[in-house]
């Protein structure tokens, strides 16, 4: 295995570097001379600024020592031991120079990785960028914000026909890139499963098989999968270990937990997911969320579900999108503008 850099290019680079170096050295000399004459703070300030310029020009620390030595040699008659001592200093500084060069190369690699992540982020946004369907008789709002660059939350809306649409919300354990990779698998699987028009409990059953076979045993996915009938306003759903959502009964002005039991996806082969059904009256709300919404640290303590209900109650009269937006903003303020986990909330209101 042979690798070799191009020598000619290096020579050319070297000459340009030399010219530049002469210029830098002249500047250094000027400042040093002025300093030795007056010992003024101005020169020290200029030296500090020059240091920044050196860094920008990628001048290594050992070169600055060399520059100092040469300048001093030109200006004063240096005792031999002082002059010789610079050799030792240079040897020590070469190690710092090596570390400095390594740092520079690692930094450029970091930039490269960051731009790769940017591409992945854009890809993921394309995967997730489903429009919230506009439906007659039902108002839907959505907010989904990743904690890091990439999200481990997943949501999905599909309109099957005139009177039926599906909604899904999922949370992959962990966050960032590993969660995002797993999220894309869920997305592709869901795209296939929706084609078959299965019931929510069947979708979770099949999805559990896929997740169980394909992800690391330390990871799992929680999910709520539902089907809303626009004619009867019945919502059928199944839950796989997911953070319970809320059901708001307008008549009673009360929030209830959206009950449902089922083990998280990827944990147990062949797990079954019971189906639940609720009817929505006019003004009723369904609120689906991921645990990034609820597991919120506010100073020293965690947000309580009762508090969350209080904040939701204050927004009840607004549109579904406003409820989702306002809640996101409110919670962000309460957690001092820190978002430790991906935050996704879907609000569905029967008009």
């Amino acid at each position, binding site marked *: *295995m*042979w690798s070799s*850099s191009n020598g000619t290019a290096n020579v050319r680079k070297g000459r340009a570097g030399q010219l530049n170096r002469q210029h830098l050295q002249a500047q250094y000399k000027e400042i040093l001379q002025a300093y030795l004459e007056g010992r003024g703070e101005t020169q020290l300030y200029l030296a500090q600024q020059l240091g920044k310029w050196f860094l920008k020009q990628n001048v290594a620390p050992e070169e600055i020592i060399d520059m100092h030595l040469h300048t001093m040699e030109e200006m004063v008659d240096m005792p031999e031991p002082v002059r010789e001592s610079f*050799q030792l200093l240079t040897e020590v500084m070469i*190690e710092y120079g090596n570390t400095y060069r*390594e740092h520079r*190369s690692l930094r450029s690699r970091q930039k490269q990785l960051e731009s790769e992540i940017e591409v992945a982020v854009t890809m993921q946004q394309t995967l997730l960028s489903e429009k919230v369907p506009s439906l007659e008789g039902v108002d839907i709002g959505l907010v989904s914000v990743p904690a890091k660059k990439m999200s481990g939350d997943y949501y999905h809306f599909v309109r099957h026909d005139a009177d039926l649409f599906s909604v899904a919300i999922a949370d992959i354990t962990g966050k960032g890139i590993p969660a995002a990779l797993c999220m894309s698998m869920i997305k592709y699987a869901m795209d296939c499963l929706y084609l078959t028009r299965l019931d929510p409990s069947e979708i979770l059953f099949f999805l559990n098989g896929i997740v169980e076979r394909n992800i690391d045993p330390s990871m799992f996915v929680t999910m709520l999968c539902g089907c809303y009938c626009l004619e009867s306003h019945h919502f059928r759903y199944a839950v796989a270990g997911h953070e319970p959502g809320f059901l708001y009964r307008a008549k009673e002005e009360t929030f209830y937990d959206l009950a449902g039991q089922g083990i998280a996806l990827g944990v147990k082969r062949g797990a079954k997911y019971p189906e639940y059904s609720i009817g929505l009256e006019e003004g009723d709300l369904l609120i689906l969320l991921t645990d990034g919404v609820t597991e919120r640290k506010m100073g020293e303590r965690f947000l309580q579900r009762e508090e969350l209900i209080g904040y939701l109650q204050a927004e009840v009269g607004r549109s579904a999108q406003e409820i989702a937006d306002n809640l996101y903003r409110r919670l962000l303020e309460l957690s001092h503008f820190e978002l430790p986990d991906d935050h996704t909330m879907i609000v569905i209101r029967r008009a």
Partner: protein
Amino acid sequence: MTVPITIEIRTEQDIVLARQEGRNLSKQLGFGNIVQSRIATAISELARNIFQYAGAGTITIETVKEDGRVGVRIVAEDHGPGIRDIRRAMEDGFSTSGGLGAGLPGVRRMMDEFSIESSVDHGTRVVIIKWNS
């Protein structure tokens, strides 16, 4: 034109000797002070790798001329365990010499040309060149 000098590397004293030879030759060829030190450091790193991981090997230092320019070429050769994963060894942050020294990526950056050949159980050969521009 000088004859190639080969230094057997068995002890730390040999590393010092190799550095010295490299520095002397670069001085003769008119390299600047910093480059002389960088050449010595690069030799030091390669020789230390031999000393630490292979136990024994050689450093050969010689003058090279090409297209009207002059340079110093250093060949470090051993018959030690070899490097299992060269790509990793050439990665920044993966220093085989355990903290001390720049490792191979550092050597590569200080030089103009760098090539490495290594096979497990057969040894390693690194060739570096620094041109006097």
